[in-house]
């Protein structure tokens, strides 16, 4: 599975979201992306992409789009 597919799948599973709506998701735009959901997302991404985010990455990560940028910053090709 390529990275963008993997990334999308994590969003779908973490937020119980539909495939066609994940790209628009932002922090607190859905009840599932609350602080608990956010932690689950960060943990899932760290495990699946084998990385450790810095504080700034975690608090800047406020949308699907922004997350891609942050993964790239961490050396993930996506």
């Amino acid at each position: 599975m390529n990275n963008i597919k993997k990334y999308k799948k994590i969003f779908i599973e973490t937020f119980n979201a539909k495939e066609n709506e994940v790209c628009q998701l932002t922090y607190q735009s859905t009840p599932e992306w609350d602080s608990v959901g956010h932690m689950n997302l960060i943990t899932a991404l760290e495990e699946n992409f084998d990385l450790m985010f810095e504080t700034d990455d975690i608090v800047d990560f406020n949308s699907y789009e922004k997350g891609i940028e942050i993964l790239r910053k961490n050396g993930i090709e996506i």
Partner: protein
Amino acid sequence: MFTDSIKNFSKHKAVVTDLGQQLTYHELHGQASQLFEKVRERCLVFCLCKNCVESLVGYVSFLSNRIVPVMLDASLKEEMLNGLVEIYKPRYVWLPIERCNELKEYYSMYSQNEYVLLRSKLHLNAEIHDSLALLLTTSGSTGSPKLVRLSYENVFSNARSIAMYLSINPDERPITTLPMHYTFGLSVINSHLIQGATILLTDRSLMEKEFWQFLKNEKATSLSGVPYTYEILKKLRFFKMDLPSLRTLTQAGGRLSIELQKEFAEYCLAKNKRFFVMYGQTEATARMSYLPYERVLEKLGSIGIAIPGGEFSLKDENGILITESGRSGELVYKGSNVSLGYAESADDLKKGDDNNGILYTGDISQRDNDNFFYIVGREKRFIKVFGNRVNLDETEQLLKSFITDCACIGTDDHMVIYITENGREEDVKKFISAKTGLNHSVFDIRYCESIPKNSSGKTLYTNLAL
């Protein structure tokens, strides 16, 4: 209750918000008085809370003027709010402007910035006991109408005890990480306001950049959290952050894992900060015990000693006092912060003190040779989810309106729900997550052919795997 602070610290800042608002104690008193002018009578008010100035002004106004607020979450579901209104029939509701049309029998009579005061169209005149100060919910998420009745003495004495053991002085600047309607969050506000300290008020979560900017810019001196807060802090690489102003961390609202306790204790020791592990219940206003920060590493896992003015004892199943160390019994607390009792209807507001200063906590505990207490189990069927009590039986009742049969068990922050309808796991997860407002990841839905029961129909929870 806050009159001393208003007098002695009138020019000192009572509150600073992340939106840039600031009020001195004098100004806070001024706004609270304006709101009181519109009510001017002892009655019941629903106060819908957010960590914002209007909500704080409402609370201070009500408590200072003998108006009795029920402290509720401002994001409480509309149907649950209406359910509570029907049961308790408050004369007024103080709530965010965007919710002002949700209550049919109420009209808007006054507004202050982003909040509106609604008055009932009916002439309600419920009798309220003289000592009743405020009411708190026992469980936010299941919408249970059961409230805890607190007296002025309860609130004031607990705030004083907390201020004493934490040595709170007017220079303290606690940043809010917990909601105001939640007993722990409210205790932070009370214990600091009576000491003339400055509350840093924000509705932002730890996950937002704005929270950390606010903390740094305003030089917050303390932060409070439930176990889940500490998990988040660790994940956020808290140990690598440079936060020189932060002197104190406090933890309550459930049991923090030993590993995390140790990590935070060691970090605080190295950084010259204080880390307090504490224990309490809404039924005791908020706080019953604390672990002195100097001894946290030595007494890992302990809830510590009773707060100033309080006293613990242990009773066995026959009600006999346990005095030796290492033996388990129910933890019993005695103190002037023990609530008056519960309310389940408007009629209960006239009730007096049911508890007489003694609380059977429902927590099974032991003491060690130094008289430090340790919780080893729970008598009642509830779990703590992100610091809030969630009653498993009430959750089952909620579910039974949706499915034929179920059984709920769990550990803190994790609930297992057994259902007997194959293939409905996802439906059930969505339903219960929407109903309780808790993230779906809390719930683990499992199918089983039938719920194990004894001959009288009682669920055999011990036959179900966690």
